[in-house]
């Protein structure tokens, strides 16, 4: 006998609406945790799986008929879909206290170790992906939700695309540079002009200092006038005060 098709639950999985910066990253995404969706269809032994498929492969996804046929994470590149996040149905019931989001792709260990358990490994490409919840019982799928809208993951660009150049030159630089350059030019011309005027003046004119208004402070010493000394004997000189050079040994003048 053909298996009965699973019941369609009126729930569309979606990315949580609250502001979470990491709800969609390059290899993971978050889903709002369904609450009270499976009540009434689930037994205590049932498990809820999350089916993840590429958006263009979701139409061709076939529900597995038993747990043994569940496509594992490793088959995603070939089968374009897999199922993960096997959880007891009781965890999604109305009364279960739980975090409000599920994170798809958060387990990096199972990707590396290649375990065959349902692996919530990181998604290898930006997608887009579509997901749906599937309630699996012992005899096969019992209920399923609608497929979600396509979820596109983030794509990172290389930092070499960043242009570090400033968008516009600040006005402060222009002000400082122009004013300082003009001040420097004025100073240089003034110094050269003053030097040139002095050099020209000393070459061409003889009268010095007629336009100088700054006198040096000359310190004057008071030199007392020399008094005439009395003539020493033995020194016959004329005029008085000057000694003449006599043939004999000259007497020192006083």
């Amino acid at each position: 006998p053909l298996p009965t098709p699973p019941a369609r639950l009126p729930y569309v999985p979606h990315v949580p609406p609250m502001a979470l910066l990491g709800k969609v990253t390059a290899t993971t995404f978050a889903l709002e945790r369904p609450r009270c969706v499976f009540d009434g269809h689930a037994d205590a032994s049932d498990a809820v799986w999350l089916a993840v498929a590429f958006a263009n492969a979701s139409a061709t996804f076939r529900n597995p008929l038993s747990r043994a046929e569940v496509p594992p994470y490793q088959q995603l590149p070939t089968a374009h879909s897999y199922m993960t996040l096997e959880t007891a149905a009781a965890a999604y019931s109305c009364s279960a206290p739980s975090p409000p989001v599920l994170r798809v792709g958060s387990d990096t260990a199972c990707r590396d170790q290649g375990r065959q358990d349902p692996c919530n490994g990181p998604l290898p490409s930006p997608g887009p992906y579509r997901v749906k919840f599937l309630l699996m019982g012992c005899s096969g799928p019992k209920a399923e939700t609608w497929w979600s809208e396509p979820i596109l993951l983030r794509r990172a660009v290389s930092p070499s695309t960043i242009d570090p150049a400033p968008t516009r030159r600040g006005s402060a630089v222009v002000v400082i540079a122009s004013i300082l350059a003009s001040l420097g030019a004025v100073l240089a011309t003034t110094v050269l002009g003053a030097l040139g005027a002095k050099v020209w003046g000393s070459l061409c004119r003889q009268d010095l200092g007629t336009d100088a208004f700054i006198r040096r402070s000359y310190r004057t010493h008071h030199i007392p006038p020399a008094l005439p000394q009395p003539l020493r004997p033995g020194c016959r000189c004329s005029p008085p005060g000057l000694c003449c050079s006599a043939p004999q040994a000259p007497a020192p003048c006083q």
Partner: protein
Amino acid sequence: MAKSDDCAHILQGLLVFGNVVIGMCGIALTAECIYFVSNPHGLYPLLKATEHSDIYAAAWIGIFVGLALFALSILGIIGVIRASRTLLMVYIILMLITFAFEMASCITAATHRDSLTPQLFLKEMLERYQNSDPANNSDSEVTKTWDKLMLQNHCCGVLGPSDWQEYTSAFRLTHSDADYPWPRTCCVLDAQGLPVNLDGCKLGVPGYYNSNGCYDAISGPVNTHAWGVAWFGFAILCWTFCVLLGTIFYWSGIEY
């Protein structure tokens, strides 16, 4: 004659006063530049890696210019009081050289401040932070500086944690996106340095990660540094210009 003597004395007094101000400003400039060069906020490795660290060169020039201004102001005071033509000519020429150096310092500080955009720091952070293949030592310095910056200022990235999501980086090569959407230092850490809620931090739940960028923490001290050097130097140069003009006029009026 008495009137021109009075004018001469007034000019002498003004020049001495001008030189005293230059001397004090020179000391202040030296002190300010020594403070900046001592790297009080620990941002020097980041600037050195961007190859736009010339605001430090401008500060170094400022130290020596400040000392030169102080010494020259003393020379100027002596030259003005003694009305010595040779001293004043030496003073004028050395002051012009100092003026040129300080002009270079101001323009360098102002120009390089403009080139320190957020994109510059973003590019450098993405390429060097946690670079596991350090060709040179500066990358590990950059990593240490960024870690310290993010821990002390409770910030993440340059513009925000989404920097790590929008761009690939050296960090991304060694840390998978699923485990480390952004570095652990972006998470709110407890006293032991461990994230308070690691899953909350990875998801970006408000309260468990630092959502603001570090650019404000970088640009504040850098702006103070650059504008302190540039505008204070500019003010000193304007004052020096006036004093030098007065000194040239005074020099040309001294008799032989």
